[in-house]
Each structure stands twice: as structure tokens, then as C-alpha cells.
């Protein structure tokens, strides 16, 4: 194997080795800390090899491939598994392994109070997650990508349900799995259609226009689930029941971005369908605004960030719909850094005040300057403040969308305003003003939690500098230039921050302003969630009860009736067996006469 393929192999197999060892050697897991050390070591190995791979790819070498046949049927190879090394996979690998490593280091401190076996289990799940994600990222075809896709779904389920004793966490885990699994049927169908149409699971097939639209729409359905787009976004806010570092890794930076990555990978297919891209353009922009509105009224800091993630994923989807693969992908990357930063900083604050409510925080910047600073940096990057990484990627997104349509562009600009506003609200309420009772004794966390904040904050600030090489790696030449649209969005961003300051910056209030009360009502009744609940309880379960009843009483009833009928027939026939010889002789005589009569007549 060539060096790049070796790096890729290490990135995939180091985590799975750790996961296997932890699955088999229960004592390691039971002690807790050895499991953490092993997982972090394997993630470090994966990260280092990902960086080496990334550097190697910067030289501009052509993609490399190493595959083995996975299933052979009817003497032809149905599917391969293996590694594909190119600009996209190398970039994504760095993002995933870096954030994973940071989150794992952060967890050392954050999860410190867990019982050792639970601590070990937590890290075993993390190793499994990194393996699954890397399988997805490095996939040489869409079938392997699908396999990784489903595996990250399972690790997400396990990690959301990490506090499985808590009924709300248990419910959230199952809900997340169901919703994403429902959407995944789209990917499965899409793969089947693709295979029948093109004879492979590759993403470079040329399809009939109608087939291309069908396949990409089916794929996009799965993206809607995984990347929490309207109307399948309902699982993501609930997923915040998981430990906060998990939210940072899976439900902000990497796993939810898998949907965007799928589109980046299958871009040659998506390019063949104008219709699908238009759907993406509008649905993404709509989700961006819708989720930003919901973020406005949350009082739980994690929920704000969760809806913000939905919203930012909407940006990415919209960019992909506008045909800017590199814009969506770059926003994925910067978002991974600053959203992970925001979640980890939020985790650090939650860790200090033992509450998720922003009303319980307040004045934290003074008590925890590093955490507060990190959160503010993350917020500025998220709001697209000029110079921060988010500014550059948002600019690329907005530029692309502006060319594609005025309506989605307007939606995204409005979202930029709301984003700045809701992040400003959190910052001013939680980190400025007078400390609340709970926040009075808050203090900075241990080094294991501070280090990841510093690393991610640095990337959130300076990440924008990598815009051009990143784009070059995706085979596109991008030089940053400020467009009118992006400038407009920045202005709206300033306005949002300003409004937040005037609303929250000067007093201890933290409730939503009256102007958005209607959003609050919408949020409380949350019609989409209600709809699924009714669908499940009033339709699916009722149908299933009816079928089960039919099975027991009608289908099985008929079979029992046959059995019972046989018994009854026997009972009725029994009196014929009288035991009296004359009766039998009579029967014999009748029989003989009958036979004689029959043979005579024929």
C-alpha cells in the first residue's frame, strides 16, 4: 500500500482496534481510565495519520483507491469495500478526527464523576463512533458510505441513551434512531435504484434525467433525516439528552454533517438533477430560518445550540442546492470547529453551574474567562463576524445562493440576523451581567477541558485562512472577495448583535422579547412533533393492534376452527361405533348390496 492509503487505513483501523479491545476486555472498561487512555491514543493515531494524509493530498496527487470484493454473487462482484483517498475524504477525515480527539480529551474532565464502568463504556462508544464515521468518510462507494452512515446512527443512539436510566434520555435515543432510520430508507431505495440503473454503487454514473432525479431525491430524503432538516429535524433537539461532549461531536460537528458529506461525495449525481438541487436550495434556506426562529426562544443553552445546528446545516444544504459543493463543504468544516467549540464551552459552563438554563448562569465571563472567551469567539464565528472563520464560509454560501435565487438568499440573510441575535442573547444573559446564585461559585474546569477550548477557539478565529487551499483540494479555485450579498449579511449580523445588546445586555432579563412571542407559542405546541406522535400512537400502533387481533382471532381462529371441527366430527361419528355385532353385520350387508348394485349397473 502506498503511504496515503496506509494513513487512511490507520485512521479507520486504529479506532476499531480500540473499540474491539474494549468490547472484549471487560476489565479495561470496568476500570474506566484505561479505556479512556486507549481510546484517546487510538484517536490521536487516527488524527496524526489524517493530518499526514491531508498534507500528502495538498501536493495535488490523483485519488487513490484500495478495495477488496465484499460480496460476490452470481460470479460478479456486487460490492467492494476499501479506502478512497482524495481531497474530500482527506479534508473530512481531518475535521472528524480532530474534533473527535478534542471532544474525547474534554470528556476526561467532563465525565470524571461517572462510575468507572460507565466512564469506560462512554469511551468505548467513542472509539466505535470514530470508526463508523471514518468508514463513512473514506468510503470508495455509496454502499460502504451507507454502512458507515447506519453505524454512526447506532453509536448516536447509544451515546444519546448513555444515561439510559433517565427515561427522557431513553426516549430521545430511540426517537433519534427511528427518525433517522425512517429517512435512511430513502438512501437504501436510492442505492437499489442506482444499482439497477447503473450496475454499481459508484457515484460517477451517468443516469437518465428522470432516474437521476429519483435517485438524488431519495438520497436527499436521507440527508433531511441525518442532517436534521425540516420536517425531520425533531430528533436533534431531543438528542441533547446525551452528555454535552457527545452533542458537540455527533450532533453538531460531525455526524449530522454526514448528510452534507453524502451530497459532496455524490455530487456528480446531484449535478444531473436540477430539480433535486432546487428542492435542496429552498428546503435548506427554509430550515435555516425556521430553526433560527425556534432557537430564539429556547432557554436551555444546549437547545439554542441544537436549533442553531439545524439552521446552519440548512445553510450548507442550501449552498449545495445552489451548486456550490465547495461552499457547503467549507461551511461544514468551519461550523464543525466553532460549533464544537460552542458546545464544549457550554459544557464547561454547565459543568460549573450544574444547570442547562441560561437564566441560571449570568456573569460567567468574570468567573470563567477562558470558557467565556471561548464561547464568545464561537458565537462571533457563528454569527459570521468579519475575520472569523464562519465569515469566510458563510460568504461563500451566500454568494452561491444569491446567484441561485432571491428568495432563499433573503431567507438566509434574515437568518444571519437572527443568528447574531440569538447568540448575542445567550452571550449577554449567560456570560455578562450579575452572576446568579448558582454561578457564584463557578470556576474554570481542569486542563483537560481547557485545552480543547483553546485549540478549537484558535481554529474558529483563524480557520478562514485556509479557505483557498481547502477549495483547491476540492478541485476549485476560490479567492476570497467580499460580495455585496455577504456584506449585507454582515450588516444584518451587526444589527442582530446590537439588538441583542439593547435587549439583554443591560439587565438581568433573559426571556424572549414580546415580538417573538408567537414563535414561543409555535415552539410550545410544536406541530411537527405532535404530528409524528399522532401518526405513531393513533395510526401505526392502532393498525398493528388490529392486525395482531386479526392474526390471533381470525387467522388463527380459522385454524382452530378446523381443529375443533375435526374433534367435533369425531365426536358426532362416535355413536356409529356401537359395539353391537348386529349393527356391524347390517352395515356390511348394506355395503355388499351397494357394491353389487354398483357393479351391476356399470
Amino acid at each position, binding site marked *: 500500500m502506498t503511504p496515503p492509503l496506509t494513513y487512511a487505513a490507520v485512521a479507520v483501523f486504529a479506532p476499531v482496534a480500540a473499540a474491539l479491545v474494549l468490547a472484549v476486555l471487560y476489565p479495561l472498561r470496568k476500570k474506566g481510565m484505561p479505556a479512556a487512555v486507549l481510546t484517546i491514543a487510538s484517536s490521536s493515531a487516527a488524527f496524526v495519520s489524517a493530518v499526514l494524509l491531508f498534507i500528502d493530498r495538498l501536493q495535488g496527487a490523483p485519488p487513490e483507491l484500495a478495495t477488496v*470484493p*465484499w*460480496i*460476490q*454473487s*452470481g*460470479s460478479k462482484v*456486487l460490492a467492494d469495500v476499501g479506502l478512497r483517498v482524495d481531497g474530500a475524504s482527506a479534508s473530512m477525515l481531518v475535521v472528524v478526527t480532530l474534533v473527535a480527539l478534542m471532544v474525547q480529551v474534554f470528556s476526561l474532565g467532563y465525565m470524571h464523576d461517572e462510575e468507572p*464502568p460507565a466512564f469506560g463504556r462512554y469511551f468505548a462508544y467513542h472509539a466505535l463512533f470514530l470508526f463508523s464515521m471514518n468508514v463513512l468518510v473514506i468510503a470508495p462507494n455509496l454502499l460502504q458510505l*451507507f*454502512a*458507515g452512515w*447506519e*453505524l454512526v446512527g*447506532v453509536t448516536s*443512539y447509544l451515546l444519546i*441513551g448513555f444515561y*439510559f*436510566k433517565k*427515561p427522557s434520555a*431513553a*426516549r430521545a*435515543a*430511540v426517537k433519534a*434512531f*427511528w427518525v433517522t*432510520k*425512517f429517512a435512511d*430508507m430513502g438512501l*437504501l*431505495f436510492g442505492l*437499489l*435504484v442506482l*444499482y*439497477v440503473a447503473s450496475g454499481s454503487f459508484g457515484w460517477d454514473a451517468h443516469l437518465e434525467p428522470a432516474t437521476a432525479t429519483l435517485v438524488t431525491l431519495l438520497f436527499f430524503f436521507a440527508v433531511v433525516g441525518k442532517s436534521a432538516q425540516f420536517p425531520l429535524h425533531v430528533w436533534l433537539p431531543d438528542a441533547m439528552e446525551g452528555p454535552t461532549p457527545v452533542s458537540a461531536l455527533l450532533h453538531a460537528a460531525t455526524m449530522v454533517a454526514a448528510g452534507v458529506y453524502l451530497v459532496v461525495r455524490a455530487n456528480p449525481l446531484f449535478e444531473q438533477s436540477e430539480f433535486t438541487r432546487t428542492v435542496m436550495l429552498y428546503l435548506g434556506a427554509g430550515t435555516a430560518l425556521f430553526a433560527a426562529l425556534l432557537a430564539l426562544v429556547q432557554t436551555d443553552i444546549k437547545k439554542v445550540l441544537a436549533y442553531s445546528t439545524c439552521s446552519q446545516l440548512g445553510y450548507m444544504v442550501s449552498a449545495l442546492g445552489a451548486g456550490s459543493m465547495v461552499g457547503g463543504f467549507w461551511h461544514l468544516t468551519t461550523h464543525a470547529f466553532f460549533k464544537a467549540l460552542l458546545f464544549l464551552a457550554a459544557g464547561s459552563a454547565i459543568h460549573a453551574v450544574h444547570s442547562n438554563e441560561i437564566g441560571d448562569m449570568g456573569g460567567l465571563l468574570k468567573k470563567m474567562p477562558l470558557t467565556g472567551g471561548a464561547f464568545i469567539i464561537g458565537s462571533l464565528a457563528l454569527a459570521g463576524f468579519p475575520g472569523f472563520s464562519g465569515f469566510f464560509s458563510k460568504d461563500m454560501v451566500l454568494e452561491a445562493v444569491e446567484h441561485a435565487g432571491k428568495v432563499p438568499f433573503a431567507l438566509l440573510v434574515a437568518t444571519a440576523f437572527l443568528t447574531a441575535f440569538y447568540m448575542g442573547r445567550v452571550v449577554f444573559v449567560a456570560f455578562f451581567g450579575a452572576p446568579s446564585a448558582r454561578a457564584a461559585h463557578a470556576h474554570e474546569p481542569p486542563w483537560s477541558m481547557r485545552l480543547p477550548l483553546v485549540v478549537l477557539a484558535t481554529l474558529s478565529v483563524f480557520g478562514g485562512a485556509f479557505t483557498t487551499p481547502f477549495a483547491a483540494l476540492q478541485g476549485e479555485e476560490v479567492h476570497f472577495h467580499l460580495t455585496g450579498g455577504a456584506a449585507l449579511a454582515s450588516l444584518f449580523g451587526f444589527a442582530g448583535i446590537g439588538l441583542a445588546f439593547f435587549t439583554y445586555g443591560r439587565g438581568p432579563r433573559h426571556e424572549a422579547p414580546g415580538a417573538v412571542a408567537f414563535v414561543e407559542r409555535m415552539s410550545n405546541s410544536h406541530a411537527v412533533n405532535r404530528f409524528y406522535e399522532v401518526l405513531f400512537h393513533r395510526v*401505526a*400502533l392502532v*393498525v*398493528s*393492534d388490529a*392486525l*395482531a*387481533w386479526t*392474526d*390471533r*382471532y381470525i*387467522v*388463527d*381462529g*380459522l*385454524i*382452530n376452527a378446523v*381443529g*375443533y371441527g375435526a374433534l367435533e366430527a369425531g365426536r358426532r361419528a362416535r355413536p356409529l361405533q356401537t359395539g353391537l355385532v348386529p349393527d356391524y353385520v347390517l352395515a356390511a350387508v348394506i355395503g355388499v348390496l351397494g357394491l353389487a348394485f354398483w357393479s351391476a349397473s356399470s
Partner: protein
Amino acid sequence: MNEHLLSIIVMAPALAALVVILLPATARLAIRVVSLTGAAISLAGSVMALVTYDRVASGHQRVETYPILPKLGISLSFAQDGWGGPLLVLTGVIIFAGVLASWTLKTRDKEYFSLLLILVAGVFGVFVSQDLLLFFLFYEVAVLPMYLLIGIWGSSHEVPADGPFKAAWTLFKVGDKGYAAMKLTLMLLVGSAAIMIAIFALYVKSGATSFDLEHLAQTKYDRSLQIWVFPLVWLGFGTLSGVFPFHTWSPDGHASAPTAVSMLHAGVLMKLGAFGVMRIGMVLMPEGTQFWVPVVGAVAALNVLYGAMCAMSQSDLKYIVAYSSVSHMGIVMLGAATLTPEGWNGAVFQMVAHGVMTGLFFALVGIVYDRSHTRSVPQMGGFATVMPGVAAFFTLACLSSLGLPGTAGFVSEFVVFLGAFSKGHYVWATAGILGAFVTAIYVLRATRAIFWGEGPNRDFHELTDARTTEWGALVILGTGLVILGMWPRVIFDHIDAGSALYLAKALASNTVAIFGGVQ
């Protein structure tokens, strides 16, 4: 030894059963050790048979033939085809794990283990038989001990009756182990009767000279004969593999059966049914198959979705797993009905995948039932706190059941759907995929209800995790699921060789008539 390997695999459990019968009933450990040894010999032999099968040469290997009644053309004839290896290993694994899972049995263990071993000898026999009559005899040997195993060692559970049929239901004693055993046996025997008619029809019409399957396969039967004989084979064998509407013995039977019996029955015996439909029905009667396959496929698709929907409504843990078997066996028949290499490979792979998975499920259910003395899911909760190992394996079984990539279930389901799609059977495939989604709903709901949530309440103070021999069973089956899912080629290439051999025959519409009198 190699040329007699198949005989050894079949005879080892039978001999072990004989030894167990001769042992005194008080020698409880000896009984178990002998049983486990018998199972181990078969398992080792099966693995050897799998590994040393020449895939390139394909076809029938290790042929052994001993004439019994030359005049009628009956012989004791064994051979291993591509399918043989994987199915033998499956059977070996399940009986080995089943003996381990029954280690703590308390009543009449001598009779129990001997019956279990006789049963499994029958299963091994079916998978390697080259003689139709022998095939049928082994089939009956495998099916009949079930009556005693459920009737004596089973458990009774009140299925709450409701609705307008309540009175009738109380009359039938549904949920009683005697009822379940009788129902299972009678339904399967009616199926056997249909098979027997079919066997004699095929034998007589081929010239009444030989029961050899190869000989029969070369016979070209009348189209009209095929059209009325095929449904007999399909429904006769199909009853055992849970074909709708003759699946209703399965929930009651599997719910009442003791752990290892459920494992064997759902894990291996149900496969005999599907195997029979493919190996006898489809291979011997291509035209009948062509005629009936739309019905077979539609019913299979119904099985998948209907079984899953019924499972969702159950509150008895064993009924959930039993209905899931009905659903998953639908995948096997669905694959078979596509008549494509993908479909057939997927069908046979699913036999193995489902066998391992449901074996694991029933082993786990047995452990939970043994500790908690209830099968009612709503009464449970928070068990993961005290039985984390069981919870982990249960989750693994669930994931395979819903077709997660990386577990065995995915491979078979995906390949079957691919076969269905490539033939344009979109409705079948859609029903199958929806069925897999419904599976995700009910298995995870059950997992949450049993294992997650607040710790177990005071009714369950005796809960413990799996113990020594139980761990053995769980680890073997769980590892199997992951290995098959990660690297399916450990058996897939074998299966492919077998499918290529038989599918050619099932698709042949102009087989040459070698023997006269047959048109």
C-alpha cells in the same frame, strides 16, 4: 475420515443421544458432557466441511451412497453442496449453544438432552440428504420430538383473551403448553402429509425407479403436474417456515417452548421449511415455480410486513421474538421467489443470519425469563443496571434484526432487496424495507422497555447477569453475527456456488427427458 465426514456429522448427535439414554438419570454432569461432546463433534465436523469444500469445483462433494432398498431406488445418500457447509455450521453452532443454554435444566434432563440430540441429527440429515425419501425421513425426525419437548419442558402462559371470541379462546386453552405443542405438531403434520403426496407424485412420474434427487431433477415433469404439486411442496414445507396464513403455530409454539428448543426451532428448523421449498419445490419443478412464484413472492412480502406489524403489538417478550421470526423468514421466501442469484444467495444467507440472530434472541429471552419469571415486557424495566451483558447482547441481536450494516441481517436483506429490484419486484422490496423499519420500531421499543429506564423494581430482586455456560452461548452467537456482517464472504462464496448450481435447474424450462414415459 474426510470422505465419511457427513456421516460423522449426522451420526454424532444420534450416538450421543444413545449414550445419554444409557446413562443413569442421576449422572447429570455426564449427561451434559456427552451431549456437549456430541454437539461439539458435529460443530467441528461442520466447520471442517465448510472449510474444505472446494468452491471452484462446486457441485456435490463428499458423496456417500449406501443402497437400502435398491428395488425401490431408496438409498442412504449424503452429499455436500455449496449451501451445505454454511447450513451445517449454523446447525452445529445452534445446538452447541443450545446445550450450553440448557445447562441449568432441572427436570428430566436425560430425556430432554436425548430428544434434543435426536432432533438435531434429523436437521443435519436434511441438509445433506441426496435422496428424497431420506430427506423426508430426516425432516420428520427433526419435527416430531418437538411435541414432547414443548409438552413436557415448556412453559404455560396465559394469553389474555379479549373481544367477542373470548369464550372460544378460553375453550381452546390458548397459551397452555399442551395446546401449543399439539397445535404445532398437528399443523406441521398436515404440512408433512402434503409433502408426502408431492413426493410420491414426483417419484411415480419420474418412472418410480429412484428417489435420488439428481435423478428427479433431470426428469421433466408435466406442466400440469408441476402446477398442482408445487403448491403442496410450498405450503407443506412452508408451514414450517411460517408462510402466511399457516404461521400461527409459531408464536404459540415458540412462546411455550423451553429456551434451547426455541433456539433450535426458530434458529434451524424453520430453515428446513424454506430449504425444502427451494431444494425440492423450485429445483425439481421449474415450470410449477414459474407459475406460482408471483404468489410465493407476494405472500412472502406480506409475511415480512405483517409479521413485523403483529410483533409491534405484542407485550409478551417471547411472542415478539416469535413474530419477528415470521417476519424474517418472509425475507428468505422473498429472496427465493425472485429467482435471481442475488435473491437466492440472500435467502440462504438469511437462513444463517436469522438462525444465529434468533438463536441469540431466544437464549437471551431464556435468561431474562429464568431470572425475572415473567415474559411480560411492560412489567420489566431498568434491567441493564443489573444485567449489562445481557442488555448488550440483546441490543446486538436487535441491531441485526433491523438490518444494521456490520451485522449479518443487513447482508441478507440488502442482497434480497437487490434481487427483487433487479427483477422489477418493487412492491415486494418496498414491503420488505418497510418491514425492516417496523422491526426497528418494535425491537428498540422492547429494548427500552426491558433494559432502560429506572432500575428494576422490587419484584425483580433476584436478577443476575448471564452465568458461565450462558456466556458461552451468547459470545458464540453474538460473535457470529458480527463476523457474518463484517465479512460475509466466510460463507457467501459457498452459498453462491450452491445457488449457481440449483438456480440453473430452477430456471431450466427445457430439461431433457432422459427416462421414458414422462412428458
